């Protein structure tokens, strides 16, 4: 076995000063919502662990997750792939091809049995013996199962791997199936989004590296640190929602003032993600911030919960569950119902010029 350098040793070798290293550890701790008392633990973990091997497989997908990953600003992706992990197999970046590339995968599976991370981008077409996605002459399903067998844990990147995403939308012609429905005996972190936010992706990896365990997950397998609140809850346009001031059509006066996009079909009220807090591409903006309603791209089945420009009221407005079968998810329906009531309440309040804050929106899933 070759010499294994720790993260800190490699950073040092790269000329990264100790002060910068400590700053990075502190920043990551803040991001992960950790107490400052835990910073020394982060530092220790980074100093003592060798780079963990990562095998990054691609199934049915569009590579937007990889593209998002390389947009990360802290840490930058060069630091991750050269210093934090050992990205030994990745269709998108690997130098080797064909059987040399497959040999790397098999070598890692053997040398690091039970110790490597399997990252999966995309999902598995299960129809017709897997002929809708083949890698190296085998079905992606077989490659996935083989590689998952001895993995320490699995990261399901993006909505494809987590929930199914676009190829899983009706009528799902290829039988596209998310990873957790294929692999059932490994810890799996779902990191949904189309794509996920770059710093969420690197945050998940850093959490694993630092603490040697998965982040705490919610009932859909998502890290609570990044998917714990709805986009609506931290939206910079929330005050306009509360005040009942809505964009009625793109580029109207309200749009030019940055009012709430709820009536344009915004799914922010039912979407759990960090878009309105971390934002995108180093905090430049997020969909709502640039005038487009959230399409809910990190939620299960979001492609079939549209049309995108229909407001949530359309999926159940009366307070009954009569439409719940249509959307297939009572929880989402209930949240939508109360959001609709909430919006009306806001509008009514506005008309009465009542400045008090309305009741908290919809029940949690």
């Amino acid at each position: 076995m070759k010499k294994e350098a720790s993260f800190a040793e490699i950073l040092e070798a790269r000329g990264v000063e100790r002060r910068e290293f400590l700053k990075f550890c502190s920043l990551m701790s803040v991001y992960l919502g950790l107490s400052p008392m835990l910073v020394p633990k982060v530092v220790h973990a980074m100093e003592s662990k060798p780079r963990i091997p990562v095998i990054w497989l691609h199934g049915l997908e569009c590579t937007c997750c990889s593209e998002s990953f390389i947009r990360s600003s802290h840490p930058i992706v060069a630091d991750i792939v050269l210093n934090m992990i050992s990205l030994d197999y990745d269709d998108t970046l690997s130098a080797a091809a064909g059987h040399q590339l497959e040999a790397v995968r098999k070598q890692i599976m053997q040398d690091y049995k039970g110790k490597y991370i399997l990252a999966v981008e995309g999902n598995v077409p299960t129809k017709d013996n897997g002929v809708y996605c083949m890698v190296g002459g085998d079905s992606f399903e077989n490659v996935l199962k083989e590689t998952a067998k001895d993995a320490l844990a699995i990261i399901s990147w993006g909505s494809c791997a987590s929930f199914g995403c676009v190829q899983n939308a009706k009528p799902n012609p290829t039988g596209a199936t998310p990873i957790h429905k294929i692999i059932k005996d490994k810890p799996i972190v779902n990191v949904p989004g189309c794509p996920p936010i770059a710093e969420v992706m690197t945050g998940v990896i850093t959490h694993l590296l630092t603490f040697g365990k998965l982040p705490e997950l919610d009932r859909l397998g998502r890290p609570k640190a990044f998917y714990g609140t709805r986009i609506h809850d931290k939206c910079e346009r929330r005050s306009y929602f509360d005040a009942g001031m809505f964009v009625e059509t793109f580029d109207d006066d309200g749009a030019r003032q940055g009012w709430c996009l709820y009536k344009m079909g915004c799914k922010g009220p039912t979407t759990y993600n960090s878009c309105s807090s971390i934002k995108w591409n180093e905090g430049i903006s997020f969909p709502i911030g640039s005038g487009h309603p959230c399409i809910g791209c990190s939620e299960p089945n979001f492609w079939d919960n549209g049309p995108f420009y229909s407001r949530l009221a359309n999926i159940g407005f009366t307070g009954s569950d009569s439409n719940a079968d249509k959307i297939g998810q009572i929880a989402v329906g209930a949240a939508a119902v109360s959001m609709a009531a909430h919006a009306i309440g806001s509008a009514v309040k506005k008309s009465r010029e009542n400045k008090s804050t309305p009741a908290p929106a919809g029940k949690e899933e």
Partner: protein
Amino acid sequence: MARRIVVDPIPRIEGHLRIEAKLNDQNVISDAYSSGTMWRGLEIILKGRDPRDAWAFTQRICGVCTTVHALASVRCVEDALGIPVPENARIIRNLMNATQQTQDHLVHFYHLHALDWVDVVSALSADPNEASRIAQSISPWPKSSPGYFKELKGRLQKFVESGQLGIFSNGYWGHSGYLLPPEVNLIAVAHYLEALEFQKEIVKIHTVFGGKNPHPNYVVGGMASAINPESDRAINIEKLNLIKDIIDQTNTFIDQVYIPDLIAIAGYYKGWLHGGGLGNYLSYGDFPETNVNDPASFLWPRGAILNKDLSTVYDDVNPRDPNQIKEEIAHSWYTYEGGDDKALHPWEGQTTPKYTGPQPPFENLDTDKQYSWLKTPRWKDNPMEVGPLARVLVAYAKGVPEIKGLVDYVLGHLNAPAAALFSTLGRTAARGVECKQTAGFMRHYYDQLVANIKAGKYDTFNADMWNPDRWPNDVKGFGFTEAPRGALGHWIHIKNKKIEDYQIVVPSTWNASPRDGQGRSGAYESALKGTPMVNPEQPLEVLRTVHSFDPCLACASHITDMNGDEITTVKIV
């Protein structure tokens, strides 16, 4: 005796591509087969949905060339419904398209293609002082001191000594096909890392207008990002300053890093002029100065070239013409109602998946039969190459002054004739030329947008046809763009306010397609033929030529619906 090699998976592309090649006893590729091994069925999924949502679905065809399918889709729906977009929407879309193309080409050159020319391990024996001298002789880029290269070399040394080579594991290091001196390899490694860090800056322009990248938001009828210089929640002077700063940085990076690197590296490989291939080139053209139905106003011109004859550009390219663009399935895993030997225009197209290949796991495809999830498009029955080389050649042959100047500049530096463009290296050089040209477009659109705002023109959206009640009941439309990888077309049929049929012919389908019914190869297969391999166990030459096309297989393998319906409205430009 002839042998067959298989390269699968092909890394540093989008999607899943397999190449099988026959070698003669001199290890020269005598025949090649290109197979797309994934299929997702996007167009089936689109059926019955709201046409205003189509951009979001089609955008998810590809996250590498994110944005291009969204752009083609909104143009397609607007074409069908007869929606002109405000001038600002045209400008913003052009700016986003130019941003995409520039960033995509930069990432392609350094992160998807460079390792076919650059030996990372060789950089370990570089002399940092000499690397600095070379770097400073070709560019004023400031990160070029002996200390900078010495530090980088030290880091690289430690990285290699760690034994964990990560993405560089099992590469073809030391292969005699690598011709760069260690110092140039070291410079290239430095710029691989610098470009990896810089590329994320360029796309922030998408984030300003589209809220995120990858997959920024578009809207049928214009753009959702409102303009209001008096608001902090709209496009204002702070956002414009950010955009201008990014445009300036991007142009500097291309001028001082990408282009000098390209010329320096190409100089060592100008004897390796394999991979020319078809010699037929097609460009839809793009970047309208007026509107998408006015090809005469496109900054990248529309046209076709046949048989490498630059003296004639065919100006009659018309993707709406039922006799021009057709797709065949003779070697594809589909079946056509009415006969698999038919060739169908996308508005009449049909696709029913029918896998007839070997059941996985398998060793070889039966390339005498069907062997790919890609269909085989033809323009006036000709196989065509699309992409940067096609665009640059059409513009060059048409005498577009900036392109002529740039091409002649690069050829002059390499002391190479124009015929050298018909090669793998020519394709790679054309991408650099195009990247510089497109980065210049970014300035142009920024200036146009600022001039409009200064004149009080803020409109970004045409709301006239937003309400489906106003739509005609049965219409067809065509939308297009010149994506980084080439000519992209979307064809839609809207019936009763829903998508009846949606068809897409993408650049990599043109380039990576299997043989047609007459046994004629597409661009990849043609380009690979005749290439000598130093060591068939290490398919460096195959990667080099295939990567020069910048393959995008998630785009290329697509499908349409099962119905061929009669048309009620067909517009011929």
